[in-house]
């Protein structure tokens, strides 16, 4: 399976993705920069990504917990999601997303 991640410079990376991994973990495993301070506990809102419009209806909606954490993002977009809360599955094969500037660590 694959996901397509556009980085902070606008470059798109095609990443091999394993079933059951968090999207955040896949992004970091391939060496792309992402703060993800709490390590996937849905406790920090620093793994924000923008989901491509065409994928918004195809991914599971944000849980109440994720929505609560998104409240800690000062500039949430309508397609903002926390990538630690998206688990890789067949359903997400081919997912396209862009790293949100808030996730940048450097």
């Amino acid at each position, binding site marked *: 399976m694959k996901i397509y991640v556009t980085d902070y410079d606008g470059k798109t990376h095609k990443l091999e993705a394993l079933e059951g991994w968090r999207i955040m973990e896949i992004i970091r495993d391939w060496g792309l920069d992402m*703060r993800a*301070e709490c390590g996937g*506990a849905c*406790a*920090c809102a*620093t793994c924000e990504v923008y989901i491509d419009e065409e994928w918004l209806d195809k991914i599971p909606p944000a849980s109440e917990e994720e929505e609560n954490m998104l409240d800690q993002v*000062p500039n*949430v977009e309508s397609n903002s999601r926390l990538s630690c809360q998206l688990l890789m599955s067949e359903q997400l094969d081919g997912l396209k997303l862009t790293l949100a500037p808030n996730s940048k660590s450097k």
Partner: protein
Amino acid sequence: MTKSEILTDIVIIGAGPVGLFAVFELGLLDLKCHLIDILDRPGGQCAELYPEKPIYDIPAFPVISGQELTDNLMKQIEPFKPEFHFNQMVEVVEKLPDGQFIVKTNEGKVFRSKVVVIAAGGGSFQPKRPPVENIEQYEGKSVQYAVRRIEDYRNQDVMIVGGGDSALDWALNLHSIAKSLTLVHRRDVFRASPASVKEMFNLVDEGKINFILGQIASLEGENGQLSAVNIKTKNSEMKKITTSRLLPFFGLTMKLGPVADWGLELNDNLIVVDTEKFETSIKGIFAIGDINYYPGKLKLILSGFHEAALMAQAAKKIINPDERLIFQYTTSSTKLQKKLGVK
């Protein structure tokens, strides 16, 4: 030496789980610790980010919450009477010609220690800053991330942004003294006590709080004085709100901060250490837990505990070079048990 200097064997920077456990390992070797942390309580990330979240990989605890882990560590180190200095950040670490260290915080505290242990995790917790152009020009006066003096808000046009307890509590507290109070949040759901939420909506109905669904788009003002905030509403309209004081409450984020300026060898913003002593490139300064780097490093609380134990042995040798160190177990050593207060 000045009078106000605090003398100690060890200064530990960071009171997260690894800093706390270091007190235990150092305490068994009779070393006295002072801990400094930017948060207002012990626990670091465990207390700030996930106090209620379960942790499953602490040895012998099938499940434990961040807060329970912190509470247990505090109990475990109690016999060693560590001293805590909260709500401050270490700005300066200087090595003196005699090998001792001077450590200074942004609150003006000065320590003189024989060893410094950096257990600062991901760095200092600092308020999340809304990514709005020129916000730094207004910070300190018109834009604050915490209420320091309520009087600063009297007769001011106050705007509070956010949807958590801090945002709601301050909206409820400040509306009566402010000239006007606007609360801005991206949705009408709040993560705060139901009583506060109800009270806030009542005040909105009475016209005492102006509630806007939206987010900050831009700031207007000059010479550090804010005059208005433009809000992008939920329907993507722009609304200009007269504002002289802005309080954004978006929680905390971690920044490496001054650690980067202490002359330590770094690798990708992490402090390089050896795996025998967990000592940095400067003799007498150790780094343990998430903030260090060595080949094979895993950012686990477990790893930090191990690093603390080995660091303590090396620190002891620096502080008491002539003392013969006999490795002992707490289970069998009456000497260690005495230190722990076992009766």
